[in-house]
């Protein structure tokens, strides 16, 4: 059973959940990190959002918050953090693909995957976020919760995002 599926203990809010959050970070830090990296164009922003997400998880558990679906909770908090960061940057720093040298391709990756990554980063904020959430294995319901859009719209928006991504390949 994953740590994220662990049922709520009776003494929530009494014990220090730091150890549990560390364990959750070890288990799920990778997917959250990859999501933030693909949703944001700035590596330093992505790093900050990862840290904030797990600090918020610590506060959430300390306050005896709901543990029924912490995986979805983590992605929701991370997505909100990414949106806030992207919104702040969009106001003052127009981004252009030509000027972005921050994500350098690895030397040994396949060409099609590299093209896929470049095409992903050329997409708009919402498309990147939706595709990243889907690629992280979230259901439409979880994507809706994390991205703040209606569940019934998720499929349509995802399909369009994929189409735009394909055109960028």
């Amino acid at each position, binding site marked *: 059973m994953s740590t994220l599926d662990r049922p709520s203990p009776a003494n929530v809010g009494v014990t220090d959940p*730091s150890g549990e*959050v*560390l364990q959750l*970070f070890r288990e799920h*830090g*990778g997917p959250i*990190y*990859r*999501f933030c*990296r*693909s949703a944001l164009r700035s590596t*330093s922003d992505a*790093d*900050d959002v*990862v*840290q*904030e997400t*797990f*600090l918020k998880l*610590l506060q959430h558990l300390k306050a005896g918050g709901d543990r029924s679906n912490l995986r979805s909770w983590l992605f929701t908090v991370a997505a909100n953090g990414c949106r806030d960061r992207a*919104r*702040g*940057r969009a*106001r*003052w*720093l127009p981004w252009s693909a030509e000027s972005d040298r921050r994500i350098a391709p*690895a030397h040994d*990756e396949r060409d*099609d*995957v*590299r093209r*896929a*990554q470049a095409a*992903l980063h050329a997409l708009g904020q919402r498309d990147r976020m939706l*595709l*990243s959430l*889907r*690629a*992280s294995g979230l259901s*439409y319901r979880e994507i809706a919760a994390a991205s703040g859009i209606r569940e019934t719209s998720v*499929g*349509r928006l*995802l*399909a369009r995002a*994929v*189409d735009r*991504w*394909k055109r960028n390949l």
Partner: protein
Amino acid sequence: MTCLTDLEVHAVVDDQASEANREHVMTCAPCQRRVDERRHHMRNLTAAIDLLGEVPAELNDRVQHAIASGRAVRGSTVLRHTTSSSFWPRAGWISAAATAAVVAVVVFVVLPRFGAPTRLSASQVLERSLQTLATGTGVESLDYELTIDGVAGGPFRIKHLIDRSNPNHYRVASYGADGLLRSAISQDPARQQRIQVIQVDGRNYFVKVAGIREPVLSLPQMAQALVESIIRMMQATADPTLTLQDTPHGREYIVETPTVASHGAAATLDLYHARTVISAEDFRIHEFEGSGTLLRQPFSVSFKLLEQTVVGAAEANFSLEPGPDDVAIEGTPGEGPFEELLTAIVREAGRTGGR
């Protein structure tokens, strides 16, 4: 049945399609090909995201430390250059800069007025600084480096002019690590005037407010109370250390409290760590850094004095004047600089229809 739309094909790939559409794909070769193609794309997309890898060791250490300490930890890229910043954090920065700046005045100007000790403990050094908290006269010019956790673009270079005979008369200008002006604030009680400058996308915006009222306690006086509290807490710490060191700039005292972890209490002021560097020659504080919580909000701030001079009242220029390319806005008096700035900007945005 007609062939599926792109949206329906995508729903099949995502396992969200209706039973009828799934059956259609089983019997329609073109739609099956479209589904296969889309699945291939989705696999590439997932691979592209997987290629971003695992959490780097540096971030891993940073997050683990943050979780253990319960508060945000700066990365090793503390001095990284961040060219962007949104308006609101920047507007908040003016308020933060003003507060930090007046704390610096207390640290650099007010605190160091104690006599040369022969043999003093750390606690005695701090007690002497408390006993000699008294403002002088004249105009002091301070040039110092300021780092505040959580504020991008730093460390900041601050140029500060303070009239020690009137703590409400001052001018502060802050410059980012790139050397560009970030913000400035000037206050003149005699003219009942306060001017704030905020720089956005290379353009300076001046907000001038006339008819300001002096607060019961000036910002420096409030800062002095805060620093007094910090020093009392440093004294109360079980084991503040006093070290004497010889440097190229002369002999220095270092008073430092051991670092303690947050105990989760909801104290108004909680100090995790504080460190001061004091010149053994004139007993001025040259460096000060402290971290803790104030009103339950974590803070971490450090100052490093670069230059301190006394200037003649006649040559002291407290004013801030807009240039030909700057935008000047007339504001109205409020409860403080931040409220005045916010109100002025919102009114201006409303007047111009948000354009």
